[in-house]
């Protein structure tokens, strides 16, 4: 949160199918969206890791929650 998320705009524009522009303000909103998604993801992964009595989040914890979180962030 203290750093700027570099090349967010380029990521979105490359992924967007049509040629679309991104406003700087909406760039900030996109960053907000990603941060919210990441925070939820991290929280879920943390919960999952606790489930397995592990204080460290590991790759398989993350994988297990990723599918659920991606579905949630569908909109």
């Amino acid at each position: 949160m203290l750093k700027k998320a570099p090349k967010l705009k380029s990521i979105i524009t490359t992924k967007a199918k049509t040629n679309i522009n991104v406003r700087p303000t909406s760039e900030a909103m996109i960053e907000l969206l990603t941060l919210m998604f990441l925070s939820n993801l991290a929280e879920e992964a943390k919960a999952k890791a606790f489930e397995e009595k592990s204080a460290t989040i590991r790759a398989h914890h993350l994988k297990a929650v990723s599918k659920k979180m991606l579905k949630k962030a569908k909109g």
Partner: protein
Amino acid sequence: MNILQTEPVMTPLAHGRAASEGRQPSSANSSKGCSIELSGLDLPDLTIGAASTQKRLFRKRHLTFDISAFEKRLDAGADHVDENEESEQSSLTLSSPTLKTPFVEVRTEKRGLQRRALQRRRISETGFDAAVDGWSMEGETGRGQTEQSLSKTTSSEGFTLGLSKLSDSDITSEIIHRHTALCAQPGAMTDNLSIVATRDKPTVRVEEEDQMEEDQMEEDQMEEDQMEVDQMEVEQMEVELGKDKSVYAFPTEGGAEPQNGSLTASKSQTEEEKHTGDHQMKDNATVAEEETGVAESLDTVREDAANTEEEENNVEAPTELEGEADSQNEENAAVRSPSEEEEAAAESQTEEEQDGVDSQVEEDVVPDTQTEEQDGVDSEPEEVAEAVSQSEEEDVAPDSQEAAVDIEPEEDSAKSQSEEEEETADDQSEQEVPAEEVEDDLADSQPEDKHDGKPEGEDAEQPSEQEERDLEHTSRRAPRSEGPLVVPVTEAAGDLDDATEEGWSDGKSKAPSSLHMESPETHASYTDADPGADNENSFHFLELANDTKDRLLNDKSPEEAAEEEEEVEEEEEEEEEEEEDSDAIPSKTPAFVRQKMNFFQPKPQNIQASSKTGEAIPVPKPKPVRKKGKGPAKKQTELPKRYLMDVFKHFAKTKVSPDVYPVLRDIMDKYFDRLAEDLETYALHAKRKTIEVEDAVLLLRRQGHVTDTVPVEVLIEKYLRMEQRKLLIPIATSGNVVIPKKWL
């Protein structure tokens, strides 16, 4: 006197009782005078009162007790304090309910608590001791007993705790007994392996021992394969693996005794796993078990092949025997069978050895030095091929394969899984001796297995590493194994569970397999499967393979070749893993596939990578090496690793293993895809060509982050930096420019 006056009002009955009781105890208690032995009904005050009443009574009735009465009076005169003290004393003597209830209660309560706690401890301790004893004995039975006792006595939680203890003790005991109890250990190991190991346990175990040597991890995997390994056993095995890899690897592989076709098979697998260090051994185990039948048949074949290595066999034979007798050979066999199948019968011995060595394998994990062991492993060419790259080369192909497998814990385990799968399918396909082929098949199967194996509960590190290797290997092997192998692999993959991984692995394994199938050379296919990073390694393999193998077939490379390949592959994988992790999205499909595979793989095994990087393979790879990252035409859609990890760690608030980065990157990739699509849709729906803030807000609303109660500004203020906030929320600045009114 004073006492009498101050006595609280008491019910006559209570007094009477107290008095009577007091009298009796008082008489008994000369010193205390007022031994207020009251029933529980009396409260402290009452007791005091009772005492006082008693005294009164005493004065009235028992003149003879002047002294005692006098004493009592004195005591009473001390006031309530004395009385209290007396009462306390009496209470102490009396049943708990009287006097000073709290004090007594506490004591009793403590006692009660203590008792319970002690009891619990005893159980755990005894169980632990039993376990320790069992370990020290290194007898299969002992271990089994300990395990059983552990399982019985300790609850699930206790068990885990005990496990940690056990692991420690095991480690120490193992260290001590390691050299001496080679024979015993393998036997014990087999037993352990036979015991189905719960997934949770291995997971926990794995986590704990994430940092353990790869070998150990391999051991775990091996145990898992056998499905039975209690966690304790696994731990033990891990320890053993880490420590005595070399020792066990050979004896187990040497298994000249074809005795237990199944046993050897399982053992071999375990060995392989150990060598390969694949965490997925667990998966393999499951697969192996399923394919017990096949394994057995393979074992027989392998036994024949293994005969070549009598030396090893001899060593292994005893171990195998032990293992057979103790553990459930069948299970081992099952585990081994798949691996064996892949490796072509040539090394039945090795398999046998492996079976016996299952326990040992874990110990022997990987060290390439134990090429000898690998020979035994050859029986499981495919599996081993991956793991043991270099050491195997030295040994005969069949042997080397096995050893190779054992040597590289991670890779082998992964490979072993695939191998197992393949083997099961190919009981007959011993033809696929060529390790390369096997490897290819394994590679295909492995990714599946790997994926499956991972979710199955292997700890992240171990499984991830294995998976990476497995993926790489499977991809390589897939083409080689061809139909029969692929089928079993897929089946095995299915069995392994981990639907998610399977799906991924299947896709990946198939992709590389298809690619590999075409390549004429097994090696080439190998390299092809691996992303460019592996090219170097593959070349190395090719060289080795060419030298060693004549019969490289697409289906299954000879065990020897497989061994070499395995070794190389393992190294390659390591390198690849490293490379891939660091590299951006590889451009070519295989690279992409590999990348996916890397997601599941924990950090690349840098240890071995360095060794490989130097090797330059003259043989031209079938696929040109891709430049890292996409070409200039392609765009980079990756967030910087540092940024991503930092943000994630910040939100996680707990430790985050760096292994998560590939997975996280993949997730973010998908997320951005969907995000861009949604935003674009919203903008286009509003007939705009620019994504506006309202589009993003609408998306937040649809996702549920912004509701009627939670305005978006709240979120903005919560997450965004100041400069961004300023952009979004018009701040009422105090930039008032005061313009004095012009007065006309």
